[in-house]
């Protein structure tokens, strides 16, 4: 039986404390890209009780995504924002989710993320990562931007770290493992990196903007 809203939040308060839970509940986080990074980040944040997520991706679920992204076999062909939103609501029925089935560009990124306290970059391509980080730092300096670079391959998970680049810019990953070097992407290593980004988001919301 699905717990009531009160039951659900009381259980979260028991784990996180009332003060932290209030901060999570009042927060809005935008996730740009809903692949291996974004779908895992979203699940961490939904489970923690972040009040609102803005999910943005232009793509549909593909069979090649299932090895590392939080979709199910029967969701192949669905738009990723819709599929992920459904999965998140099964985990946390009381979360507010805004979905955008569009490609993020320099032109639309500020409008798409305008309500977010934190923007999580979760793209696949290096050029798109750079575009988003530059756009937020240049045009929305009041927001936090969390980004990931270097989580491909089968190397040690311990090489993945989060660095604070500047006051509101954090970077997770090993900085070097490029998927374009033909080294593949393994669910566990991508998930470690996604968890770094999600964990940093939650720490920032708790007022601990340090690594």
């Amino acid at each position, binding site marked *: 039986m699905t717990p009531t809203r009160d039951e659900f939040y009381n259980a979260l308060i028991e784990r996180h404390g009332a003060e932290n839970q209030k901060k999570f509940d009042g927060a809005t986080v935008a996730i740009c*890209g809903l*692949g*291996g*990074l*974004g779908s895992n980040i979203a699940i961490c944040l939904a489970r923690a009780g972040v009040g609102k997520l803005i999910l943005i991706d232009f793509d549909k679920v593909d069979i090649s995504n299932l090895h590392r992204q939080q979709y199910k076999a029967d969701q192949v062909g669905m738009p990723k924002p819709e599929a992920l939103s459904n999965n998140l609501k099964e985990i946390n029925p009381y979360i507010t989710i805004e979905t955008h089935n569009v490609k993020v560009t320099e032109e639309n990124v500020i409008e798409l993320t305008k309500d977010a306290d934190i923007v999580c970059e*979760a*793209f*696949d*391509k*290096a*050029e798109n*990562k*750079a575009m988003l*980080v*530059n756009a937020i*730092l*240049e045009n929305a*300096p009041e927001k936090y931007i969390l*980004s*990931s*670079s*270097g*989580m*491909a391959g089968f190397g040690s998970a311990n090489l993945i770290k989060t660095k604070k*680049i*500047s*006051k509101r*810019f954090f*970077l997770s*990953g090993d*900085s*070097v*493992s*490029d*998927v*374009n070097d033909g080294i593949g*992407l393994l669910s566990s290593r*991508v998930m470690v990196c996604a968890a770094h980004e999600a964990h940093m988001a939650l720490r920032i919301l708790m007022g601990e903007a340090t690594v």
Partner: protein
Amino acid sequence: MVKINGEEYQYDNKQLTAVLEELNYDQTRIAVEINEEIVPKVCYDATVLKDGDIVEVVSFVGGG
């Protein structure tokens, strides 16, 4: 002397674009901060490094 990603270089009075080219950065895959302030891409040509500048060049790789 300027510091780029923690290493010291004699790039005083040198244009940022020239420095990025010399260090082989792909300008489509980077974000540059000088003294913790973002440098907009359109300003790379007009930005000249000065003694004591702390430069961070974040170079992104693919995968996500």
